[in-house]
Structure formats: C-alpha cells, structure tokens
C-alpha cells in the first residue's frame, strides 16, 4: 500500500504548478472505471460531500475491491486516488495502514482528510466497508 502511495507522490512531484496537479487529478478521474446505473444507488452515496460520490465495495478472496464514481471531477479524482491505494488490499491493511498520499501531493489543504470534509467522509466509508468485511471473515 505504501509503495502505491509513494509512487503517486513521485508522479505528482514531477508536476510543477497547481494547474498541472489538478489537471492530473482530473485525468485520474477520467480514467476511473465508471459505475453502472445499478451501482449508483442511494445506499452507495457517501454523505457529507458537496458533490455526489458513490462507493461500491465487495470482498474477493479476502481482499476488498472498490469501485467509485462522482458527478464532479475533483471529487472523482480524489476518490480515484483512494481507490488506487486501497483497492485489492486486505481489510486489515485498509484499517491499520497509514494513509498519507493526499497530504503530500501538493493539493490544497482543504482536500486533506478531516472528519468534516468530503475526503474525510470518503476515507471513513472505505474503512467502514473494510471493518464490515473483516468481521465477516472472522465470523466465517
């Protein structure tokens, strides 16, 4: 997980100004596999974001597979970063791993994760899924 984050930090490091960085974030958004209409249901909506963000998760072979979408590019770019880091990881790693990529890619501070903003809600929802899958595997 840290290797993925370090790679992203390196990629963003090559970009000099805010335009390039946000341009890259928008490119990440565009490259994210969109959700199907059936997956864009109210149950998958992450509350607390200014735009609508959908997150779908399932467990495959002990690893969490995430898919996400948003009606805004910036939000979609942010959740694409999260998906890049957490998709395919074990619930345990997702719950206990250190998530530091967003703080170190030079995007503005209001995109850093805190409980009151969109990124904070996205992170929380991803970990909530991981926790649910973890208890499911432990009970099985």
């Amino acid at each position: 997980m840290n290797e993925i984050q370090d790679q992203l930090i390196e990629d963003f490091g090559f970009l000099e100004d805010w335009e390039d960085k946000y341009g890259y974030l928008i490119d990440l958004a565009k490259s994210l596999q969109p959700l199907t209409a059936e997956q864009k249901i109210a149950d998958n909506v992450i509350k607390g974001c200014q735009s609508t963000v959908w997150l779908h998760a399932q467990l495959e072979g002990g690893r969490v597979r995430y898919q996400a979408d948003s009606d805004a590019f910036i939000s979609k770019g942010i959740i694409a970063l999260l998906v890049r880091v957490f998709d395919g990881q074990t619930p345990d790693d997702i719950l206990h791993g250190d998530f530091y990529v967003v703080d170190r890619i030079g995007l503005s501070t209001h995109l850093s994760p805190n409980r009151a903003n969109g990124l904070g809600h996205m992170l929380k929802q991803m970990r909530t899924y991981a926790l649910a899958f973890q208890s499911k595997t432990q009970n099985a």
Partner: protein
Amino acid sequence: MKGATRIDWQAIRADFPILDEQVHGKPLVYFDNAATSQKPKQVIDALVAYYSRYNSNVHRGVHSLSQQATAAFEATRRKVQLLLNAREEAEIIYTSGTTAAINLVASSWGALHVVAGDEILITGLEHHANIVPWQMLCERTGAKLVVAPILDNGEVSLEAFAQLLSPRTKMAAFSWISNALGTVNPVHKMIALAQAAGAFTLVDAAQAAPHSVIDVQVLDCDFLCFSAHKMLGPTGIGILYGKREVLEPLPPYQGGGDMIKEVTFEKTTYNDLPLRLEAGTPNIADVIAFGTAIDYMQNIGLANIEARENELLDYATAKISEITGIRLIGTAPEKRCVLSFMLGGAHPYDVGVLLDQMGIAIRTGHHCAQPVMDRYQIPGSCRASFAFYNTFEEIDRFITALQKVQKMLS
C-alpha cells in the same frame, strides 16, 4: 449614478484589511458577499475598543463601565430605528441573526395566532431559514405550509401568490431579495396583497438590508429581519423589527434575566419591549460594533452603495454572458448583487475548487435554498455575489479565471 461618481471607492476599499490578503499566493478576490460581508477596520476597532476599554454587562450596573456599555448598546438600537424608519426603539429587537428572528416569530407569534387549519404562505425562493421554522410551526399546530411558485426567470409568480392568499392565511413570509438568485421581490405589492387577505407579514431582508434603503412605515409589514454580518457588522447579531401592536401581546420567546420585572417562585412579571424578548446577557460587543457598521454604511450612503453594486452586477452579467456555455440561473428583470450560474456541464464544486486556486472566493452548492435548485433541476449553482468594495478589475480576473476553469474541465 451621479452620487456614485463622487465616492472614492479605492479609499473605501482600503478600509477593509482582509482585501489585502493573498490566497494560494494570489490576491484575494472576495465574491461571497451574500454569505457574509467583509468588515471595515472601523468595525474591528470598535470591537477592540469595547473589550479593551469598557467591557461590562448592560442594563444592571450602576458603575461607570456598565453605564458606558449600556449607552453604546442602546445607541445601536436607535441607529437601527433610524435606518429602518421605525416608529420607536422598542420595535427593534436584538436577536442572534435572521434565523433566530424568524424562529422567534414562528414560536411566539405562532403560539398566539396559529391553529390547525391555518395556512402560512411562503415563496419558492426562500432560504431554509424562512422555510424550516414555519414547517416546525405547522407540525406543532396542524397548520399548512403553502408555497407560491417561481417563474422560469426566478421571479415569484405574483398571480399565484395572490391566488394562494385566503382567509385561512395567517402569515405571508417572504424574502425581499433572493440569496440564491438575486431576484428582487415586489415586497410592497406582496405586503399589500397579504394585508388585504387579513394575513400578517414577515419580510426576510437578510439580502436587502446590506444594499437597499428600507422604510418599514412605507412597507407597513408586521415583521422584518436581517443579520448584521451581511452588512459589515460582526456575526452573531441580527435584528427583528416588529410593529409595537404586534410585538406587545407576544408571549416571551425565552425566559431568564433582563426580560423580567419581578420574579418570585409563584409568579413572574415580564419586562416591557424590547427587553421582554431579549432574555439573558445580550451580545453586547457585536451590537456596539454593528452600530459602527451602520454609521459606516450611512456615511457612504445606501443610494451610492446601491448604484455602485448595480454597476458591478451589470458589468459582470455582460462579461460572463460572453462565455460560451454559461447558463445564468435567475434572470429576473430586477436583480441585486448576485450572479448565479452554471459553467456548461461543469459541476459547481469543481468550478469553486479551481477558482479558489486562483484566489477567487465564490459560493457553490445549494446556498441553503434547496427548493430553488430543485426548481431548476440542478444540484447547486456557482454564485458570485458582489459588494461595493469589489472592483471591475476583480470581475475581469474572475472572467479570465472562469475561462481557464472551463478549459481545465473540458
């Protein structure tokens, strides 16, 4: 217009320290004035002076500081009375803001006047603060909330408003200027129509008071309210104006100190207006600084402010209309200070985040007026809102920045 040309707007702008700030290394362009205005140094100094030199509780101390604080606190009431041309100071009630003022009316006036089967008429333009308190009143009493729809251009349908008034209508409550679209409602006509139907009237002047001359005796509404922080004053202070004969019979909203004459465990007698509706130690510092804000606005002159802001809005509207794909939300013939728009298919959130990178502060989202956004079937809009201290150069920067955003999101 003539008056406006005599004013040195650059000198006025220099009174606002925050306008020299940089955001992301670029000079701040503050176009979120409908959310809250910036404060001139005179207002900031008034707060510092109060806390540094005569901080004291009001209405009870015999000592000098308390006398001084009380005099300054009550001087603001007089200034508000003159600002609104109210008949007397007792008609001016301090609240924490417009929201608190409407809640006070919905609670105290509602308890006295509203029963099951009655109706409260609002419009489709309202801020949540002029919707939810009435919904709560309706839930408590079994009254019904009735909504006059808006037309495609963002005007209230006066025809529908008139038709929806009936003998069941106990209150017609509406905004003077829409915070989401900038539409100026024909409040004089609406008040007259409501009065003819026998209804009480409340005008939400939160967006009007910073920009318009208000005369409550000409309007003849029963209640009118607004917030200081949108008109150069501090946060946490607002005004409820009410006609004496309407305020007098109202049961107190909250109980406590300052609102009583005599308290025993058996019986409490209440104080006279306005203190009867102002329980507890009030927001002294902010009331006093609000007085300074009123002085500051009066020195410029509301007519000059209005003319300047209309020029800014007209200029911005013309410039933004040149951008391909711009959709203006709200195109009423009479509008003030607010430019609500969609940039092609771009999500307002993206537009707001990218403009912020260029130092430009606008509001994005539903502007606490979700029903208005639903009316236009959009999740929210971008809203640039202007104040007299903004400049034409700032609008030029904003337009250039919007074009850059459009390119980045395409």
